[in-house]
């Protein structure tokens, strides 16, 4: 029954707590009732202990009364005295009825029997005394009175001795009952101790069953609070207030988990889009680069030059052959390096080829000098970065000057640790405004010479910026018109 009630999950916490207190209190109450019953029994027994002494005292008093009333009658012979005698005799007889008449081995029982029989004899003598007195038989009543008095003494002695014996016996019982009281104290204490421990255990078990879901809930709330949204749902074992809260909590956990899932998905989509955008931008840049590099496509020329070189060799025209070889080397480099990076050394070699070709073209008007730090020439660079600069220096710097043109190429370690490549001419020079325009990319592209190979300063700058992923890749210096121009590239050793 109890189990079923407890299993009824719809009970409220208040009802459950009341049940816990009720059960434990009921146990306490039952034990106390049992104990009180025992105590009452014991007290009743103690009350009875000296009852036999009380009876003996009553008997003794009644006997004295009989003797006294008989003597009174003998002295006075009035009707009151004889009435008193008969009354006390009757009372004594009634009291005698309570005494044992059987022969037993109990000392007290045997004395009671003797008292009863002696008293019967005594009362016969007292009756005889009274009757003889009434009949004025003096001698007879005296004799009967003596006999009665003798027996009276014997009975008194017996009553007194029995009383003593019973008192001694009763005292022993009284002591034993007191001892029982002590043992009752001990037993009661022991029972209460056991009940207390059992009640604490029961209350602990009951309250734990009530508060366990609450502590589980608190623990789960703490975990959620510290950011662990992946924990499982909490067990709902009851339908009380805590059960309701736990269910709501579980719903909340599910909602939070669903919301987090949604947010995660949207973030993933967003980052994928960003990634796609970046890839597209990269592709765009790459396309743009490819487009710029595609502007120079010298395959046909290179093949033609090879044919020319072979022709010159057959005709034994050595200078022509060398010229065509340089041309061929120049375009081979263009074909080979057009799509990827190269080294500074190759770039310098390309410049050498280019200047040779131009000097053939312009009858050796262009003076070309190099100051190269050979330790720096193995640095990786985008292809076709030096030749456009030298081409610009020739086209815009030294072509139209009156004095002999000089192109100086220098490679050195810069102040900030970067590798500096300087292409300097002693030509027309540039104004500061023009330098700003060029660096800003606003130079008039239409003004480019028709024989330019198509790779301008912007192209070089853009490619260097993309390659080295830095803004500072190029500088232009000029002291003014006719003061020459120096273009400096700031390269970085990517291997470091």
């Amino acid at each position, binding site marked *: 029954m109890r189990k079923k009630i407890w299993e009824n999950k719809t009970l409220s916490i208040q009802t459950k707590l009341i049940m816990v207190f009720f059960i434990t209190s009921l146990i306490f109450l039952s034990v106390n009732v049992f104990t009180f019953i025992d105590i009452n029994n014991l007290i009743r027994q103690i009350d009875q202990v000296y009852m036999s002494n009380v009876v003996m005292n009553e008997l003794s008093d009644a006997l004295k009364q009989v003797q006294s009333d008989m003597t009174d009658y003998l002295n006075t012979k009035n009707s009151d005295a004889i009435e008193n005698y008969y009354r006390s005799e009757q009372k004594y007889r009634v009291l005698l009825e309570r005494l044992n008449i059987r022969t037993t081995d109990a000392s007290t029982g045997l004395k009671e*029997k003797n008292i009863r029989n002696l008293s019967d004899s005594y009362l016969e003598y007292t009756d005889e005394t009274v009757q003889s007195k009434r009949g004025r038989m003096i001698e007879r009543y005296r004799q009967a009175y003596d006999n009665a008095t003798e027996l009276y003494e*014997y009975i008194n002695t017996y009553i*007194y001795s029995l009383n003593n014996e019973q008192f001694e016996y009763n005292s022993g019982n009284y002591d034993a009952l007191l001892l029982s009281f002590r043992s009752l104290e001990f037993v009661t204490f022991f029972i209460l101790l056991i009940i207390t421990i059992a009640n604490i255990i029961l209350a602990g078990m009951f309250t734990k069953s009530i508060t366990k879901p609450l502590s589980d809930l608190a623990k789960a709330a703490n975990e959620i609070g510290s950011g662990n949204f992946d924990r499982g749902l909490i067990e709902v074992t009851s339908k009380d207030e805590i059960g309701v809260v736990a269910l709501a909590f579980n719903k909340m956990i599910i909602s939070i988990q669903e919301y987090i899932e949604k947010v995660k998905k949207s973030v993933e989509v967003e980052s994928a889009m960003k990634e796609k955008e970046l890839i597209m931008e990269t592709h765009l840049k790459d396309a743009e680069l490819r487009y710029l590099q595609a502007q120079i496509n010298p395959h046909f020329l290179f093949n033609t030059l090879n044919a020319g070189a072979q022709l010159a060799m057959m005709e034994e025209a050595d200078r022509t052959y060398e010229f065509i070889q340089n041309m061929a080397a120049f375009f081979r480099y263009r074909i080979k390096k057009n799509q990827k990076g190269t080294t500074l050394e190759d770039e310098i070699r390309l410049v050498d080829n280019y200047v040779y070709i131009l000097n053939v073209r312009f009858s050796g008007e262009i003076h070309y000098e190099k100051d190269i730090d050979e330790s720096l020439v193995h640095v990786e660079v985008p292809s076709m970065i030096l030749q456009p600069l030298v081409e610009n220096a020739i086209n815009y710097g030294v072509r139209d000057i009156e004095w002999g043109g000089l192109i100086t190429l220098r490679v050195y370690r810069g102040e900030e640790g970067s590798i500096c490549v300087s292409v300097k001419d002693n030509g027309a020079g540039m104004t500061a405004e023009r330098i700003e325009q060029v660096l800003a990319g606003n130079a008039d592209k239409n003004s480019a010479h028709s024989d330019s190979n198509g790779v301008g300063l912007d192209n070089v700058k853009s490619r260097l910026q993309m390659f080295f992923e830095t803004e500072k890749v190029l500088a232009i210096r000029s002291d003014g018109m006719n003061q020459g121009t120096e273009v400096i590239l700031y390269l970085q050793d990517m291997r470091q």
Partner: protein
Amino acid sequence: MRQYLKKRNFDVGIIGCMLFTIAATIGCLVYFRYQVGKIPYLKAEEREFENHYAFITMDNQNQFFRTVYEAAKAEGEKRNDYVELMGDGLAVDYSRDELMRIAIHAKVDGIILEADENERTMELINQAGEASIPVITVGSDCTGSTRQGFVGISNYSLGQEYGRQMLASADEEVQRVLVLMNMNTADSSQNIIYSGLCEMIENSDKKDKFVIGTIAIDDSSPFGAEESVRNIFMREDELPDIMICLNELNTNCAYQAVVDYNKVGEIKIFGYYENDSIKDAISKQIMTCTVSIDTEQMGEYCIQALDEYKETGYVNEFMQTDIVLITEQNVGEFLKNEKKDMGE
């Protein structure tokens, strides 16, 4: 499954806890009731008997009669009779005659009485007879009364036994024999013992070797007997060679006086009845011999006589109990038996 197990553990725990509580409570209460049950008041067991016999002696402290009483009581229990030692446990020390009156008026079913030849005793026995209470005398008789029977020894035979012991200890010189007789004893038993003794000596060829005399011991006052016995030792020139005691008290006094006056070996003591000190004295050769009466047999005969009378209306007038002479030769056996009894 886990939840089911947890639930089952919870239920088992709760039920176990409650069962334990109930068991402990019941156990403790049962223990308490057991403790209370041990109180004698609550379980006083009495046995009911068919007959109530009164055992009356002149002195309830007398060892001899106490052992007779114990034997009678034991026999009575076998036969569904309860034997009460009258006067025992009373606040007043009543005389034998008073106890006799009490017994008659208490309407007992029979009386075992240490009687004498006194007229008052005879009257009381007759009074009991009038009240239809059978009386058996024990140890000493009241021959003129209406008592139903007597249980005791043959005093004549006892006297002859003393005589035989005297003859056995006779030597060349004439020995003076002093028989200690109680002054206030009303029965004739001492006289019969004395005559039996004298007759045995007279009829022997050594009658010239003994001079037999008697002395009256005053036992009327407290310590009178002891004083009378010591007085004998005060008269150095009249000291006897053999002293014959006819009761337990005189025997004890004589034995103590022999030791105190350093007469061990000079005076031979023939005692009466046996107790520890008397047997000890015989084993140490302070005393020559003593008479042992079969008290158990005496007590048994008393009950048998009363029962027989109640059943048939007749009983043997005299039932003789056996006597054994304890000497240095056989005292060891008696001491051994005594130890065995104590061991039991």
